[in-house]
Structure formats: structure tokens, C-alpha cells
């Protein structure tokens, strides 16, 4: 097994709102090995993006990391001062965002925005420009020479996302976080971008953390998956294992909600109920109001995370209690 590049343990993120503190991330623990692709899936508002931003310590105010450890290559990032943290951003860990239209600065040429990143490594401007062009070639931007001189609004969504990816891999980070990298794009472009990410991580031997709500993306690209619900990880494991034998009722329902079967017989299942309000979570397991297999204990005690074997965890009373082992 490859060495762990990133280990997150017991991460807590809290937002101080006018109606009191909201725990957006509640004791999330996971790790990513060198060269591995981990996907975090969940509905909007489950804390997956906040978890991702925490790794770069870029949680927007009024959010604050209130507990846990984020150990990258042996260093707890939460112990670093802001200046040392800057050395990690972009260089060791970088991140691409959901909507490439608003994530690129509208007043700078796209090539400059890549060049600006390269120049952080003390590269003189002319060499940084050539490096930027080279990177834009690698992300398969058509006519990189021309496009580098274009402004973001002159590019299509897919091209913008390529510029974004180019900017973020230009300093050879060891971990790339991709927050819903394909959500804002057309379906055909989505596949291209995923292919690109997959190729790049092999070429550059990067680890990848993909945040998505799309299980199709998970199946396409990820080695391991973590399912999040209401700020907590409810299940983790290898993608094949989780897809074949999901243990948490939420994961099971998510997989059922995937469109499958021939087109004319296509039936979509949905999960009844809605995502709970993080500022007012139900007692016990936060999923119990929507769970079809809930036990009495579910509304009283929140389950602990149980490790079934290394790399495979679940957080559910149905698993690990007596009923599970008897089955």
C-alpha cells in the first residue's frame, strides 16, 4: 500500500451565524494515498465543499475550523501560520472550482493567470509565459497561443475549465482537489474534462480529491469513495466495494437513484424527505427521519464510525450491532 499523502482526522468546521453556530463538518476523517483518487459524494449542503476548502484552509468567513487534524506529508496544516500555509497552496495542494466563469478573474488574460501562478516559483516572466503556454497545451486547450491572450469571457465553459486546470497543475502539486469540476459544463465536455483529469493524474502522479454529487463521476474516475451526509462521512470504501455492497441505507438509496436500465424502461427513484437543516439536526442519526430501515436507537444515539477493514468504514446502527453480525 502506498504511503498516505493526506490524512484528515476528526475535522470540525463551524459557521457562526446570527442564529447560532452551525456545525457544517462534524468529525470527518479520511485519507488519500499517493496517486490515489478519492471522491467525496453527497447532496448539496452536506459539507463536502467545506471539507475540501478546509484542506487549503480557505473556508470562507464566518466559517472556522474548530477541531481535528489535517496532516499533509507529515505536517499538520492546521498548525502552520498563514505565511507557511501559502507555501502549500498551489505548490503542494491546489484546487479547481465548480464554475470556471466566475472562478477566473475577468480582467486578466487567461494566459497571464497561469503565468502568475508559475511566477510564484521565482520563474522570470518570459519563461513563465512559455511554461504557461506549455501547460495550456497539456490541458489540450485548442490554439493555446491565441487563447492565452484571450480574456476568460471570450472562452467557452470547457476552455475556461481547461485554463483553470492548467493554472492549478502548473506548479506540479501533489494533490489536486476538484470541487464539482464538471457540474457547470455540458455533458459532452464533462466527459472530456474527466478524461483530462484522469490522464493528468497518471502523467503527473498526482493524488486527486474529487467533490461531486454525481455517482457517475465517482464510477468513472475514483479509486475510493466517501459518502457524506449532514456534515459527516457515513460510509467510505473502495468504489467497487461500495457500489456492489453499500452498507449505509443512505448510500443504498443514492445508488438506487442512479438512472439505469434501457432508456424506455428508465425509472428514477428518489430519496423521500429533504436534507436536514445543519443548524437544527434531528437527535440521533441525522439520516433517521428519511431512513426506511431505522431502529429505535436511531432517533436517540448517533452511531459511531465503525471500521470494517482498513479503508472501509460505515456509520450506522444497522451495521456492527448484533443484528449485523448475526446476519
Amino acid at each position, binding site marked *: 500500500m502506498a504511503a498516505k499523502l493526506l490524512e484528515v482526522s476528526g475535522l470540525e468546521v463551524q459557521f457562526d451565524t446570527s442564529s447560532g453556530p452551525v456545525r457544517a463538518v462534524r468529525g470527518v476523517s479520511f485519507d488519500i494515498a499517493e496517486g490515489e483518487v478519492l471522491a467525496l459524494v453527497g447532496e448539496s449542503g452536506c459539507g463536502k465543499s467545506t471539507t475540501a*476548502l478546509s484542506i*487549503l484552509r*480557505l473556508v*470562507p468567513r464566518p466559517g472556522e475550523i474548530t477541531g481535528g487534524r489535517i496532516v499533509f506529508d507529515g505536517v499538520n496544516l492546521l498548525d502552520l501560520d*498563514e*505565511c507557511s500555509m*501559502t*507555501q*502549500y*497552496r*498551489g*505548490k503542494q495542494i*491546489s*484546487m479547481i*472550482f465548480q*464554475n470556471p466563469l*466566475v*472562478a*477566473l*478573474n*475577468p*480582467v486578466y488574460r487567461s494566459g497571464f493567470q497561469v503565468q*502568475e*501562478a508559475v511566477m*510564484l516559483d521565482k520563474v522570470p516572466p518570459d519563461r513563465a509565459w512559455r511554461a504557461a503556454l506549455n501547460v495550456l497545451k497539456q490541458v489540450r486547450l485548442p490554439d493555446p497561443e491565441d487563447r492565452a491572450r484571450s*480574456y476568460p*469571457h*471570450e472562452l467557452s465553459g470547457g476552455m475556461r475549465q481547461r485554463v*483553470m486546470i492548467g*493554472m*492549478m497543475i502548473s*506548479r506540479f502539486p501533489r494533490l489536486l482537489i476538484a470541487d464539482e469540476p464538471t457540474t457547470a459544463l455540458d455533458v459532452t465536455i464533462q466527459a472530456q474534462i474527466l478524461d483530462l483529469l484522469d490522464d493528468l493524474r497518471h502523467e503527473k502522479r498526482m493524488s486527486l480529491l474529487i467533490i461531486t454529487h454525481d455517482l457517475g463521476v465517482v464510477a468513472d474516475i475514483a479509486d475510493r469513495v466517501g459518502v457524506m451526509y449532514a456534515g459527516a462521512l457515513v460510509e467510505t470504501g473502495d468504489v467497487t466495494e461500495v457500489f456492489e455492497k453499500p452498507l449505509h441505507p443512505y448510500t443504498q438509496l443514492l445508488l438506487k437513484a442512479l438512472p439505469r436500465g434501457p432508456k424506455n424502461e428508465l425509472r428514477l427513484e428518489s430519496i423521500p424527505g429533504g436534507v436536514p437543516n445543519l443548524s437544527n439536526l434531528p437527535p440521533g442519526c441525522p439520516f433517521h427521519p428519511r431512513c426506511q430501515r431505522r431502529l429505535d436507537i436511531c432517533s436517540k444515539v448517533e452511531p459511531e464510525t465503525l471500521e470494517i477493514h482498513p479503508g472501509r468504514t460505515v456509520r450506522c446502527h444497522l451495521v456492527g450491532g448484533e443484528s449485523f453480525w448475526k446476519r
Partner: protein
Amino acid sequence: MLNYVLKRLAVGVLVIISASIVLFSIMQLMPGDPIRMVADPRLPPHRIEELKRAWGLDKPAYVQYLYWMKNLLRGDMGTSIATGQPVGYLIASRLPYTLLLAGTAMVVRYLIGVPLGLIAALRQGTKLDRLLVMATTMLMMIPGYWFAILLMMVFAIKLRWLPISGFQGPASLVLPLMTMVLPGIGGTLRVTRSEVLDTAREPFVLTAHAKGLSARAVQVYHILRNALIPVTVSFFLNLPWLISGSVIIENVFAWPGMGRLVWGAIQSQDLPVVQGVFVMITALTVVCNIVGDIVAGLLDPRIRVEIEEARE
């Protein structure tokens, strides 16, 4: 770009013409009669009629207007009824003083307001931020004419540091400047502050952090660079407003500018002078708006595209 400017100028001319029609109509509705204001009341009626004919005031209003417009297009703004001097000369001798006062006031206001706005935004939520916003808001609420008199009492009468009114060199600028600048700082501070705070929330700022730029570099190259676009444009949009707003201040301080000229002209019903000054202010407004748009286009490539497209 050149085509765009020409097109905007053409629209500007239309704006000036419509504004002058409105103005002309309003003046026709004014009670009183310019001839009676200047002529001796003992003058016999037929002499008054003669004078009216000489000034063209016996013609219907629209004919008067067309005459005036025809002369204006030839560069002749008419003759002052009260003094007999050409209006063009009167304005030309006063305009530099108004531009000096309003222009300096604008520059000083932005030189103070923008940095304070930046400080308030970067220290958002702190005591300093609240103090700055509160203090400048209170300054905004002070009526200019009252503030002017207060300043005169303190600095000219009590302390005798500065001349009380008129224009006797640079020292004369100080009090009218203070009267015009201090209330305006609040507005500039607020615009700057809110633009900076809005920009700081943009996703591209997160991107800039994520690629590893230092906090200072993000502030300067990504937050300020973008936030100052609307602030700069507001400078040009506010300038004509300040020029027309200087009418009262100029009168309080006996400042030899256009504001004082038009004030006197209104009182003596000197219609050609009033017309001329207002056309001048309209023209300045149009020019400032165009300059503002061009500057916006230079600073923001997205607006440049809109400008290029508007050309086609």
C-alpha cells in the same frame, strides 16, 4: 473605439438639444421680464417695445429658441442683457475657476475617500471600520451652506488663518474645498468599501488564494484591481454633479466661478447667460459620462466587448 466615441458624442448633442429646449421652456414660464429688470421704470412704453424688438423678445418663444440655437451652432452664445458682454466671454472667464474648485474638490475627495474606504473594508467589522463609516456619514448630513458659514467663522473670523471669501490666491481655495470635500468623503468611502467587500467574495479571489498567491498579492492584484473599476468610473460620473452643486458654495464664498455667474443671471433674469451656463453644464455632463465609459472600457475587458459590439 473611435466610432463608439463619435456615436456617443452624437447622442450627447441630442441630449444637449433636448435639455436646452426644456430649459428654454422653463424660462419662458418664469414670471417677470428681463427688459423691465434692466431698464429704467420711467421709460415710456414705446421705448420698452423698441428694446424688446432689439433683443428679439417680441418674437414667439420657438422663434427665439431657433435663433438662439442657430447662433449657438456658430459658436455664438448670445449677449448678456444685463451687461452687454458676450455670454461666451463671460463663461470663458468664469469656467476655469469653477473647474479649478470642482476638479480639485473631486480629486481631494477621492484621494481621501478611497484610501479610507480600503482601510474600512480591509478592517471590516472592527471599531476603526465602524468609526470611519459613522464619522463620514455624519459629515454627509451637514448642509453645505451652513457648514460654509461655520468654517468662515472659525478659520477666517476667529483664527484669521484664511481669507473669508473671493479669490486671492491658493489660500482662498481652502475653505470652499473643505465645504465641498468633507460631506462627499462619506459617499466615496462607502462606494469603495462596498466594492472591495463585494469583490473579496468573488470566486476568483478564492482561486487566487488557492493557486498560492500571498494575502497581500491577492488584495492588490485581484481584489483592489477589480474593485477600483467602478470607483474610478464613479469619479467621472460625479464630476458634473459636483460642478452644478458648486453653485451654492460659490455664492457663499463669493467665488468668481460659473455658479456665481448663473446665480446673478437668474436674479436679473438675464436669460442668455442662464441658458449659456446650463448648456455648458449639460455639455460637461455629457463629456464626463463619455470619458467615464471610455475609462471603464480601458479598465474592464468585458465592457470593452460591449463597446465593440455597440459599434456594429
